[in-house]
């Protein structure tokens, strides 16, 4: 077990560093000059200012040296300073991450809480109305583009029916809760501001539905397929032959085995939800990491891009690592191989 754990962890670290190297090379080879994106027209025409700016951001150094500095700073837990916001990248990430994590987590919980039961029900009641309905839901979820779904939801529930609040994390008139964790749900609860907690929860409804739609579809389909396969296994037949109640057969015998592929998918899906929020954040004016990364890329803000690559890589690798570890728990045979 220990050897398995160590080797997976080491591989994870190497992969994360490798991904930053690749992104660094790509960003450095793009013909644009990040300094010009930041300076005004007049300042950008003054060679002295441009030179000073380059020196300040270390852009005048050879590429390998720039990357070496990045690694050295990283070892000290420093991701450097963002060229466009002129603040430490770590401070930026700390600022924007909670909004994304909150949204991504709610969307993840939603897709699991709906997707798994729906998939199981569809498999158990194969070809019944619930199966058709589940297929319809997952088809819509997987195939509708996020920007379209977001607008439709906003127009219907915010514009016409007026039962949902608009874009943003809170109403314009409200002040955000005092920052403790950065999650507005947790912070407003900690501050005992129940009225604000309601607003915050309400503002999460539409974006999290939009964000989870595609994942929900995938989870439902996978659960259904895996469940169907499991239900055809010998041990299920044995369980039934023993005279167990159908409910016990499904929940206690079939479901745990059927969930193994779903766990793999869920891990990836969570990573996807955390890193794939750009569109949802755009339409719902959600101040999260997706938008931050998108803007950093447009401005060729190399320190921010590197920082975000590292974060995204770590999120993916960490979740993969967790999934790997969970296999070991779910299926002891993994360790023996």
């Amino acid at each position, binding site marked *: 077990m220990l050897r398995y754990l160590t080797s997976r962890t080491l591989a994870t670290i190497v992969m994360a560093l490798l991904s930053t190297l690749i992104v660094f090379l790509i960003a450095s080879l793009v013909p644009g000059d990040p300094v010009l994106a930041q300076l005004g027209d007049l300042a950008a025409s003054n060679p002295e200012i441009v030179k000073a700016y380059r020196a300040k951001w270390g852009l005048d150094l050879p590429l390998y040296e720039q990357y070496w500095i990045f690694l050295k700073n990283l070892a000290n837990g420093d991701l450097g300073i963002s060229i466009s916001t002129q603040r430490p990248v770590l401070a930026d990430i700390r600022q924007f991450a909670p909004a994304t994590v909150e949204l991504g987590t709610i969307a993840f919980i939603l897709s699991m809480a709906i997707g798994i039961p729906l998939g199981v029900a569809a498999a158990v009641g194969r070809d019944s109305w619930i199966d058709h309905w589940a297929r319809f839901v997952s088809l819509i979820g997987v195939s509708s583009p996020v920007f379209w779904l977001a607008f439709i939801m906003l127009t219907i529930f915010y514009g016409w029916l007026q039962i949902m609040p608009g874009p943003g994390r809170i109403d314009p008139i409200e002040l955000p809760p005092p920052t403790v964790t950065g999650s507005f749900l947790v912070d407003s609860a900690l501050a005992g501001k129940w009225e604000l907690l*309601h607003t915050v929860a309400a503002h999460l409804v539409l974006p999290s539905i939009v964000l989870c739609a595609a994942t929900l579809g995938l989870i439902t389909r996978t659960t259904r397929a895996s469940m169907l396969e499991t239900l055809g296994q010998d041990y299920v037949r044995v369980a039934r032959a023993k005279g167990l109640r159908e409910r016990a057969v499904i929940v206690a015998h079939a479901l745990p085995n059927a969930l193994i592929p779903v766990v793999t998918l869920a891990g990836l899906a969570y990573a996807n939800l955390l890193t794939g929020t750009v569109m949802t954040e755009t339409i719902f004016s959600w101040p999260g990491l997706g938008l931050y990364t998108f803007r950093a890329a447009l401005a060729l803000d190399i320190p921010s891009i590197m920082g975000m690559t590292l974060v995204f890589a770590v999120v993916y690798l960490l979740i993969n690592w967790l999934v790997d570890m969970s296999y070991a728990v779910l299926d002891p045979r993994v360790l023996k191989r």
Partner: protein
Amino acid sequence: MNRDSIHSITRRDLMRLLGIGGGAAIGAGLPGFEALAQSRKDTLVIGMDIRDTNNLDPVRDLHYTPPMTVHACYDTLLTMDPGDYITLKPALATKWERTPDGKGWRFTLRDNVKFVTGNKMTAQDVKYSLDRVNYIGYQAAQYLTNVAEFKVVDEKTIDVMLKNPIEPILTILAAPSFSITDSKVVAEKGGDATPQSKDKDKATEWLNQNSVGTGPYKLVGWERGAQIQLVANPTYWGGKPPYQRVVIRHFEDSAAQLLSLRRGDIDAAFNLLPEQLTTLKDDKDLWIKEHDSLDFIYIALTHNPEFNKALAVKEARQAVAYAIDYDGIIKNLLGGAGIRPPNFIPAGLLGATEQLTKEIGFREDLDRAKKLLAQAGFPDGFEFEIIYGNGAIAGTTYHVLGQKLQADLGRVGIKLKLNPMPQVNLRTLYNGGKMSATLVYWNPPAVENALWSWATVQRVAKRLHWTPPADLVKLVDDAATETDPKKAEALYIEYQKRMVDVANLIVLFQPRYQVGVCKTIKDLPLTAAGWQLEVGGVKPSA
């Protein structure tokens, strides 16, 4: 549209839908909500795309949107009324005149002005604020290169001494970058206004969340990418501000902005597209505020035959200019929301009017374009490549404009090759002068004719590989330093005629700002002077 009733329905239905709250919670929630509804009337909510807001410290680089917030919280020595960019108005200075030796300007400060911190505003604060801009050395400092010294004469008098006494400075000092801050508090928070301030100044982080000015409002918080919160400044010298609070709410997307305006969650929407604005016209709860900007979109053509043989010939460049359907662009692509200046000085400034465009500016004239092509030695036309950014502009996109130009020029046999690219790559190529033609945007950091005209004979000329004739450079200098407005106007008209003849800069249009506004607002004083909106002048309907 009764926003309060809509809002309470929202909440109740929502709670039911979510299954949280229940009857008791709704009952308990209501009193607090009424208090909020009360404050909604006293709160101005502005919907705007503020993604470029990276700083709210006046001395740092202020891109497009931060000046609005800065101007709401701070005052400058002089200012300009919306729509009049020629007459200077007193702000923190009530009087300005030449210094006795004639080498600078002497400003007399307004009496009894207090900062929002409670401290009295003095000449020392003015010196500290302007020194800090100068020494920190960001973009704004570039406009102070002619300043020799800011000299305190007494508590309410300050001299701005110039290296070249006749170069313009007054209009420049009206820009929000030159805001006056409370020197004591800024210094307390790590500010520095000495030649070492580039490394020593640490006040920006604090000034991004707090303001220490004399303006109608006070910054109390900025949640990046979400909103900026202002409250009324009780000590404002100009009287009680009309709103208790101002919220500048970020919208990444214009359709969401439109929905929020219709719902009454925001009072004004700044980033609506032309087709979205037309849907507002028959809404009785909304109106549209329009204002001509001083920004423009222009084409720059190289003089370097290595990049394009034809464009190096003046007549070929002129042919391009006469083959463009300017009216069609403004009418069809902008929905009529734009005007066109004669050349590189926006209409609305000294010596530049739409009337003059009709008299001396380019116009669509295909026969003339063909004749010019023949004169240039390219009777069958020629081909050139134009670079521009991926992105939206003035309710359309650069790409759509490019396609329109391609069709227009095609009529006289000029083939236009379109080359869209990320903005940052575009700037790299344009600043380095490595392109045959570009389609880009120009917006002024301060309202001063010379900032445009100097650019055309200095840095822009360099990018186009053009050496402007000495007499033209002299003309620009003369116009900039002429103190008699009548004579200066004549010089600027002459300058524009010359530039039209050179035909390396073709201005397509100046967009007109169009803002969707709720009827709850009576007046929304937009300005093109660099800060978009006079926030302190926004008034609610009775």
